[in-house]
């Protein structure tokens, strides 16, 4: 739309600018709050460094699980018209509308010691509540839908006839998937995985209920804010923000360019 100075156009631009300012303002304010010196201090704080490593490792584990379990589901949802497909697709999207503390409570009931599944996992040495698997469970619950929907869209963008051509050229179903569909959908799947990783890193609501200790970065920030006040929370918050920005940049690079696909 060409820029014109009608009252209508001015209103549009003004409202749009307000929102951009509202999002960018606080983030910029936080970035400028932290001096390089305070960042250095933050990175020499063993508790913060350990917490960031824990966050990175658990988020990576949750993302790998999301991909391992989510990509097959996404492929089935995109390609196979099985009965109840819409219901399954809806179930997987549900975590998006469930408030995260509610998800934490639900996971606690489902995976806690009192439940048969929790008891079964505990006998396998995989105790969830107040342990690292609890962090991964919370992250997986909120990030898996991101992987499934990104991968499903990526698979939908690949013409099934390409796989059929590969089959007539001697590929089995799994070979055609690996040599044709996955390379073509790969960017979309990876972009979804990166977003899921970022979502995992930022998760707080369900983890605070499942596993307060050991503390992931988001919980550590909350912990420091409630115990020691704002100045204590800022360096950790900045570090987490920088990680998020790096991931965001990565997604921009990986995001599939729709115009390129037919």
């Amino acid at each position, binding site marked *: 739309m060409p820029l014109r100075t009608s009252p209508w156009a001015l209103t549009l631009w003004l409202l749009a600018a307000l929102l951009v300012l509202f999002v960018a303002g606080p983030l910029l304010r936080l970035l400028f709050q932290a001096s390089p010196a305070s960042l250095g201090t933050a990175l020499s704080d063993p508790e913060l460094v350990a917490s960031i490593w824990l966050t990175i490792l658990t988020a990576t584990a949750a993302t790998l699980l999301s991909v391992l379990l989510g990509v097959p589901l996404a492929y089935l949802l995109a390609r196979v018209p099985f009965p109840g497909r819409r219901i399954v697709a809806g179930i997987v999207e549900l975590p998006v509308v469930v408030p995260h503390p509610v998800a934490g409570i639900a996971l606690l009931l489902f995976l806690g010691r009192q439940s048969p599944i929790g008891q079964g996992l505990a006998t396998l040495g995989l105790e969830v509540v107040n342990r690292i698997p609890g962090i991964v469970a919370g992250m997986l619950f909120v990030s898996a839908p991101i992987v499934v929907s990104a991968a499903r869209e990526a698979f939908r963008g690949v013409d099934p006839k390409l796989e*059929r051509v590969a*089959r*007539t050229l001697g590929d089995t179903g799994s070979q055609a998937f690996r040599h*044709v569909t996955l*390379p*073509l959908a790969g960017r979309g799947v990876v972009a979804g995985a990166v977003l899921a990783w970022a979502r995992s890193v930022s998760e707080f609501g369900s983890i605070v209920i499942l596993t307060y200790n050991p503390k992931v970065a988001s919980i550590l920030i909350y912990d420091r804010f409630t115990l020691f006040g704002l100045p204590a929370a800022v360096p950790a918050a900045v570090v987490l923000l920088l990680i998020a920005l790096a991931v965001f940049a990565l997604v921009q690079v990986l995001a599939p360019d729709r115009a390129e696909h*037919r």
Partner: protein
Amino acid sequence: MIRLEGVTVQVGNFSLEEVSLVVPAGGYGLIIGPTGSGKTTLLEAIAGHEPLRRGRIALRDEDVTTAAPETRRVGFVYQHYHLFPHLTVGENIGYGLRREAPDARAGRIRDLSETLGLVPLLSRSVRGLSGGEQQRIALARALAPRPNILLLDEPFAAVDPATRRVLRRELRALHEREGITTLQVTHDFEDAMRLGDVVAVLAEGRIAQSGTPDAVFRYPNSAFVAEFIGTGTVLRGTVERMQDREDPAARFAARFRSGSLSLEVVAEREGEAYAVIRPADLLLSRTEGHEPAPRNRFPAVIVRVERGSAVAQVHLDAGGTALVAAVMSSTAEELGLAPGVSVAVAIKATAIHLI
């Protein structure tokens, strides 16, 4: 050889019903039919992509009804080529040769790309190539693993007429050289006439008629086939016997009346019928004299002339009845055929096919 026996396939709301067809070894079969008649589904069923509800498919005398696509040794070329966009031209052609030794693979890619004029493109991306180039690549890719059967889905639909003529010639030559049993889907009867040994007309999931192209072309067994294959004029009318005969099964001389037209025909039965007249069987002349008239000679006025490179289609109005004639473009020029011009039309009784 491709042998289909009562092939029945259900895809969504659409079904192919009881399709039976044989393309002999080394033969060239054509399936023609309008959009939505199930042509592509039939090819996909033969390739093993769609399961059969009933019926059998044999390729090279081997029953493959339940075999996986990768075991059928079928080459498939889709209408929109479906080249692998993440691979180069050479990698596309060599896709089905990955299990072969590198030398054999490179040799086969080189041979095919030389035959099809693709050598300069081998290391290029497949994006941004012309329709004709993509078509040749898709053909080379399908032929590379030396399939027993080649299935072509509207291979010429998306290229311009000049490229189509060249591709058609190349395809016929390749077919003769490789001796590969081929089944092609088309909606273009010219493909069928120029390429096919066997033609099947598909209508709403059923084979309406099959046989040699000439037989289907000259003797369509239904108005659908006649109108679809575009034989020119299809008239609805009634047949009246002109002479009595003892043998009721024999063909007899008769009169076919449709609107103001009354034509001498050779008929097998009386009553309501369709008359099919090929455009080339309508003879046009400008003579206004009163020389001895042959049978079935009547006046008409030219409505429209569609001039092709070699043949012109002349649309005529004969006392309210629409007719289509085909004449050589040069003849149309010589006779001065143009809209509004009156001509004399002559049709031999034996050229009028009644169905």
